[in-house]
Each structure stands twice: as structure tokens, then as C-alpha cells.
């Protein structure tokens, strides 16, 4: 018998680092355990969604011999949740260096997620070979001008998906670019300042560690357009570890990878997959579940690892 209950699920997610449960309440996202979040879910207008990131299908290394298998485990965990997430956000690096067939494998596995919709933001691994051609042919549909960026509203929360990996070449860091910034300014202009905003993207929108390229060059301008809002939550991936930061009304949260962990900023000569045994790595990969509850509470964010299979 599968003994995964809600708490077990959360722990599992936190263990691997792939899944974060985000709870939105009163427009502020915050980190919380899954149990209180589930109690809040019954409140009218509340909902939860799951963030997965950096699935890196095609990766095969010391920390993980099969990134597709760990992604499948994450999907199984999501499907075991007592209430299915409203939707799933994938914050990029679906593939490991656009390995042949990897996009197909990810699509096949994610077809099995019991949820209404999956929204995507690309990672540099998904676009560096062909400038985003394959990614956009698969996921550009329905995004602004087919460029990959998008926004949608769900139960009073405004979600914005940004692309910050297509300006990568030769510039050394993530960037949003002029066209996308102009769109963002217009997109949020019509929103009331009390509308909770959730931004999802791949590379952090704050300066995590520029020496390793863990920064988005023109993020300050984007955040400037969001400053007037009472609640802004920025979700990203890229760095394969949970990091959180609060700056005024903006909460930044980076999710774990479902594939392999990366070293803490500056703790190793270079970023990249940590060379550690699979058993150890499973405590450092997973998912993020977020719950939103209308009222005075912040969004609840729970990171869960995969190590409790």
C-alpha cells in the first residue's frame, strides 16, 4: 500500500526539492506547512497550485541516473495529493541541453498529471541550441505574440509568466528585453493594486549570485512596475535549491529541481550538478506547492523533497 498522506507528500516534495505548494491568501505568498494550508483550502475562493522546475530530462550523472524517472515520481506525488492542484507551473529547463527526444519525454510524463492546466516558462537549456524555436513551437501558442510570455487570472490572482533566457547569448546573464518589459508594464497597468500578483519565470529576478549568472539583468525595471501592488510573489527555478527573500511587498522564492541539486552560491568552484550519491541527492530535489486563501494570510509555500518514496 502506498502510505503517502498529505504530510508525507509534503515531506517528500521537500526532500527532492521539485514541488512547492503555493498558497495565496490575502495577496501575500508565504511559506507554510501543508497541513494548515489544506485546512485553509476549504475557504471560499482559495486554491492551490504546484510549481515544478528544472526537470532536466536527458541528464544522467552521479546525482541522478535517470531524470525522467524522478520526474515521474514527482507526478505520482502530485496525483496522490488529497485535492488536486488547480494547475501546475513549470519554471523551465524541461530538458538537459535540448537532448534529442527530451521535450517529447517531458510532455508524455506531464500528460499524466491530474490537473486542469500546465503553464510553462522556458529555461536556457530549452532554448540555447535553436534560439527557442522548438520550445515556442510547442509552448508559444496562446502566449503574447507567440514569444512565450503570458498572463492569466485565476480566482482573483493575476499570474504573469516571463521569459528571461532568450537574451542569454553573449550577455552572461538572464534578461527580459525591451519588448517584454513594455508588455509587462501595460499588462499590469489595468490591475488594481490590491490584486495579488504571482510572477513565474526561470532565472531569479533578484541578484542571487551574478558570478554564476544567477541574476536577471533588467529585473529591476520589471519589479518597478510591480511595486505598487500589495502582494507580489516571484517564483523561479534555475539554481536548483530553495532560496527565499522578501523585499517590501515582494516575496522571491526559488524552487528545487526535480533532477539534481546545485551547490549553494559561491560554495563550489562552479555551478552545475553536484556530484553526490543519488540517495543524498533525493533529499535535495522535489516540488513546491502553493496555497492561496482569501483573507489576511499570505500565500503558503511548501517545498517538498523526493526522498520518502
Amino acid at each position, binding site marked *: 500500500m502506498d502510505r503517502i498522506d498529505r504530510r508525507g507528500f509534503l515531506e517528500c516534495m521537500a526532500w527532492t526539492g521539485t514541488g512547492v505548494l503555493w498558497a495565496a491568501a490575502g495577496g501575500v505568498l508565504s511559506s507554510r506547512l501543508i497541513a494548515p494550508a489544506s485546512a485553509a483550502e476549504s475557504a471560499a475562493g482559495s486554491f492551490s497550485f504546484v510549481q515544478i522546475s528544472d526537470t532536466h530530462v536527458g541528464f544522467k550523472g552521479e546525482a541522478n541516473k535517470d531524470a525522467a524517472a524522478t520526474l515521474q515520481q514527482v507526478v505520482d506525488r502530485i496525483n496522490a495529493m488529497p485535492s488536486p492542484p488547480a494547475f501546475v507551473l513549470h519554471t523551465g529547463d524541461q530538458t538537459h*541541453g*535540448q*537532448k534529442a527526444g527530451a521535450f517529447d519525454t517531458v510532455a508524455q510524463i506531464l500528460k499524466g498529471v491530474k490537473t486542469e492546466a500546465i503553464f510553462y516558462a522556458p529555461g536556457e537549456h530549452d532554448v540555447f*541550441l535553436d534560439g527557442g524555436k522548438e520550445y515556442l513551437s510547442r509552448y508559444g501558442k496562446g502566449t503574447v505574440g507567440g514569444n512565450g510570455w503570458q498572463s492569466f487570472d485565476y480566482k482573483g490572482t493575476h499570474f504573469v509568466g516571463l521569459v528571461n533566457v532568450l537574451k542569454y*547569448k553573449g550577455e552572461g546573464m538572464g534578461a527580459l528585453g525591451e519588448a517584454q518589459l513594455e508588455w509587462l508594464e501595460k499588462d499590469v497597468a489595468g490591475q488594481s493594486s490590491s490584486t495579488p500578483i504571482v510572477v513565474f519565470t526561470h532565472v531569479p529576478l533578484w541578484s542571487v549570485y551574478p558570478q554564476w*549568472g544567477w541574476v536577471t539583468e533588467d529585473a529591476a525595471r520589471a519589479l518597478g512596475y510591480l511595486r505598487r501592488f500589495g502582494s507580489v510573489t516571484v517564483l523561479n527555478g534555475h539554481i536548483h535549491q530553495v532560496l527565499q527573500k522578501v523585499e517590501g511587498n515582494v516575496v522571491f522564492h526559488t524552487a528545487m529541481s526535480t533532477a539534481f541539486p546545485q551547490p549553494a552560491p559561491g560554495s563550489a568552484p562552479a555551478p*552545475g550538478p553536484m*556530484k553526490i550519491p543519488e540517495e543524498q541527492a533525493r533529499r535535495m530535489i522535489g516540488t513546491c506547492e502553493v496555497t492561496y486563501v482569501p483573507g489576511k494570510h499570505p500565500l503558503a509555500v511548501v517545498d517538498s523533497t523526493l526522498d520518502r518514496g
Partner: protein
Amino acid sequence: MKRHNGKLAWRLPAVIAATALAMACATVAHAPAATREAVGIKDFTYSPATLTVPVGATVTWINHDEEPHTITSAAGAFGSAGLSHEETFARTFTDRGTYQYFCALHPRMRATVIVK
């Protein structure tokens, strides 16, 4: 005077070529015509960062990281796909020049091949 200079200009490359041939013979006994050089990639660094080779040399890159890297010419002269762990990419340089390249996934990684 003019004629003398012309002669010198003709002779000098011949001397260099002979020297290069002799050096190539000394290092690669069975393949005197081609020079082979290698650049390793480890911890997000190309090594050596600057490689000087003669015209006609073939340079092979090998990626020792588990993270993929590319060899992408800044001027668009050449470019590899993403190299997986221990995968290689080779290119033969037939023209003199300074070739700067970087990794398309990690653009801070930069290095140079000088072909003389």
C-alpha cells in the same frame, strides 16, 4: 633593392614552414602534416584559455563537466551542439586569425584560439 626584398619575402615563409614541419614531426611522429590540440572543459572553464596553433591544426574540445557546454564562435565562424559529459567537438582551422568563442549556455565562459 626591390628585387632583393622580394626574394626575402619569398624565403621567409619557407623557413617558417620548414621549422613548423620539423616541430610537428618532433611531436607527432606518424602524422607530420597535421597538428592536433586539445582544450579541456572543467568547472565551467576552458583550459587553456588561449591556445595558439598553426594553420591546418585540428582542435578538439572535451567536456569533463556533467553540465553541457558549447563551443560557440563569437563571430559565428563555428559552433557546437551542447556537449554532454566527456563528449567532444573538433574543428580544423584553415585560416589565420584570432577566434574568440564562448559557451552559449554559460556566456561567462570565454576563451580564444589563435591560428598563426
